[in-house]
Structure formats: structure tokens, C-alpha cells
């Protein structure tokens, strides 16, 4: 009995156990997902050690140049602080390391938002009007209207109305209503795509069953 066949049976059983969730939460589903969570966590940790810590930190510290060693002293120290978080009593020592991660993450988020989303999306919306084709122009107008009213939909500022309720300015409310329609169309379109992906996964699992039993 080959190793592939054994793992094939394991894959089949796990698939069956997870599918049992459609009937309801049960023992087999729990066992399957706990096995899955454990294996996935162990695998990702192994990847992090073998492909991040080892090549980017430990190896250069041993075999790297002095410049590399000096440069890596900071992450080595911060990593040491971070490992202190394993023990709850010493977890506070890891605060500087977490602060670096949070600060870098915030900076990457800000930079990515400006250079990766705001400018490209605004530019693409405007550039669509460069096309001379009528249909493209109509599409560009639809996209522009959709973007503008969707942005208006998210407007947060409001004021107290005469009846005591907190509402936005009348025109903004109208624009927000139009924006909500565009948002609904967008989410509906994406939902169709999500369902298509899930349906394809379902079909793939069925084909796996068919292959396992020699069907189809």
C-alpha cells in the first residue's frame, strides 16, 4: 500500500467529514477541522522558520558579512523581545517589536492606499474618458457616476433635522440613495462570482470523489 494511496484515503475521509457539516455540526467535522488547523499552523510555522528566519536572519548572522551582521542586529534583538511574548509574564518586553510591526504596517497601509489605490483608481476613472468610442464613453460615464455617488453614500457628516432625527443634507441623502444602488449592483455582481467559485470548488470535490471511486 503506497503512501499516496494512504494519503488519498485520508483526503477522502477528511472531505467526507467536512461535508458532514451540511447536516450539522458534528464530531467528524470537528475532528477534521482541528486536524486541519493543526497541520496548517505547523506547516506555516515551518515555512516561516525555514524560509524567513533561517535564510534572512540566522544564516546571514553566521555566514554573512559584518555589515549584514550589524544590520541584522536590530531585528535579532527585536525578535528576541518578540519571543518573550511566549511567556505571559515577560510578554511586555515584546512591546517594542510589536510597535515596529504596527508602525511599519501603518506606513505600508498609508503608502499603499495613496499610491496603490487612490491614484490608480482615480486615474483609471478619468482615463476612461479618453476613449473616442461611444460605448466606451457611456461606460466611462456610468463608472464615473457610480464612483461619485458611491463616495457620497459613505459621507458621515450629518445634522439634526427638524423632526429631531440626525440626517445628512438633502442632496447628499439623494446622492447616497443612488450610490446605494450602485453598491448593490457591485456586490451582486461580486456575489455571483463568489458563488461561481464556491460552486466550482464543490464540483471539484465531487470529481475528487469520482476519481477516488473510479467514476466519471
Amino acid at each position, binding site marked *: 500500500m503506497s503512501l499516496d494511496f494512504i494519503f488519498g484515503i485520508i483526503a477522502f475521509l477528511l472531505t467526507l467529514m467536512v461535508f458532514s457539516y*451540511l447536516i450539522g455540526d458534528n464530531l467528524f467535522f470537528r475532528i477534521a477541522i482541528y486536524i486541519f488547523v493543526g497541520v496548517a499552523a505547523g506547516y506555516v510555522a515551518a515555512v516561516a522558520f*525555514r524560509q524567513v528566519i533561517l535564510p534572512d536572519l540566522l544564516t546571514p548572522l553566521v555566514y554573512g558579512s559584518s555589515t549584514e551582521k550589524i544590520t541584522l542586529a536590530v531585528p535579532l534583538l527585536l525578535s528576541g523581545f518578540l519571543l518573550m511574548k511566549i511567556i505571559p509574564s515577560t510578554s511586555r518586553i515584546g512591546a517594542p517589536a510589536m510597535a515596529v510591526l504596527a508602525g511599519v504596517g501603518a506606513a*505600508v497601509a498609508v*503608502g499603499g492606499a495613496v499610491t496603490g489605490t487612490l491614484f490608480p483608481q482615480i486615474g483609471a476613472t478619468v482615463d476612461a474618458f479618453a476613449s473616442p468610442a461611444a460605448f466606451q464613453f457611456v461606460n466611462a460615464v456610468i463608472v464615473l457616476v457610480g464612483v461619485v455617488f458611491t463616495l457620497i453614500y459613505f459621507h458621515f457628516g450629518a445634522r439634526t433635522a427638524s423632526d429631531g432625527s440626525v440626517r445628512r443634507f438633502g442632496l447628499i441623502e439623494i446622492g447616497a440613495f443612488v450610490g446605494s444602488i450602485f453598491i448593490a449592483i457591485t456586490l451582486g455582481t461580486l456575489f455571483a462570482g463568489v458563488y461561481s467559485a464556491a460552486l466550482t470548488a464543490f464540483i471539484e470535490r465531487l470529481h*475528487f470523489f469520482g476519481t477516488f471511486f473510479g467514476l466519471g
Partner: protein
Amino acid sequence: MRAIAVVLAVATGLLVLIGYFIPTLAPIQSMILNWAIILSGAAALVGVFNLIWVHWGKISRREKGSLYSAILLICLIATLIFGMLLGPDDSNMRLLVNSIIVPVEATLMALLAVTLVYASIRLLRRRANLMSVVFLATALLLLIASATLPFGEIGPLNNFVRPWFQHAWALGGARGILIGVALGTLMTGLRVLFGADRPYGGK
């Protein structure tokens, strides 16, 4: 320690941020980003120990579901040990991925096919408003336009309506959402860089 953390967060964050716009600071930005990558790798190890700690506690306290925690710990530790020794690219480790991670994840994704249909049916019960109606109508239109019938395609739907919605109608809302998310991300990041929000602890 808290004050040092704030200083480190603001200093490293500002250096990385400025590096996006001032090319001369790009090397410093790259160096700090490499530090962050290493730290995220170390955090993964700490996270695994955190996972072990949580489930070991459940087992030691004999809480409900400690059997599952034991199963998880066995699988986790075994995979971690073999993964570190053999490496994640070892054929046996890949076999492990293909026989456990892939089937379970793919099946969980497959469950969504049922879950999403069920949720769509229940949507108008939860939120019977125009937005939900438009949402479902669009979804149904796109689903029909994505399929074919035994006697052939549903002409205009497949060839015109579907592409038009994807290229125009859905695009406007999507861009608006993405721009809005970018604005929110910008403000959230700036609050962290100013030290107003300190997810790493402190006041």
C-alpha cells in the same frame, strides 16, 4: 518600555512612509521592511506557541473539547517538527498539504455553495429593502448570464449583459468602495503613526 514602543512605532513608520514618496529614502525603507518581514516570521513562531498554549490549557483544565485540542496539538507539533527538519518543500510535506490542507480547505469552500444559496434565500427576510432587492436581482442576472442551457447560450445575457455589468455598472461601485476604503486606511494609518492609536499597548 511603552514610551520606547511609541517612539519606535512612530519613527519606523514615518521612515517607511516617506520612503514611498522620496526615492532617496527607499533603501532605509527597504531595510526596515526587511526587519518587519523577519519580525513577522518570528511572530509566526510565537503565534504557534500561543496556539499550543491555548489548547494545552484546555487539555490541562479538561475543558469541553479537550479531545479536539489534543488532536490539534498532535497534528501541529508533528507537522512543525517534520516541516522544520525536512522543509516545507519536501515531497512528503507537499503530500501532507495535498492530502489534508487542500481537501479540507476546498471542501470548506464548497460548503459556501450551499451556505450562500441559503443566505440569499434568507436575505430578504432579514433586510427587506431596495438595496437587497437590487443586490439579489443583479446576482441572479449574473448567475443566469454565466450559465448556458442545454439548447445553447442565453444570447444577450452571456454576450452583452454580463460583460456590461462587470465592466461598467459594477465597476463604478467597486471603485467607489475601494477609494472609500483607501481613505479609511489612510486615516487609520495616520492615527497609528501619530500615536493616537496604539495597538501595541499603552494608553
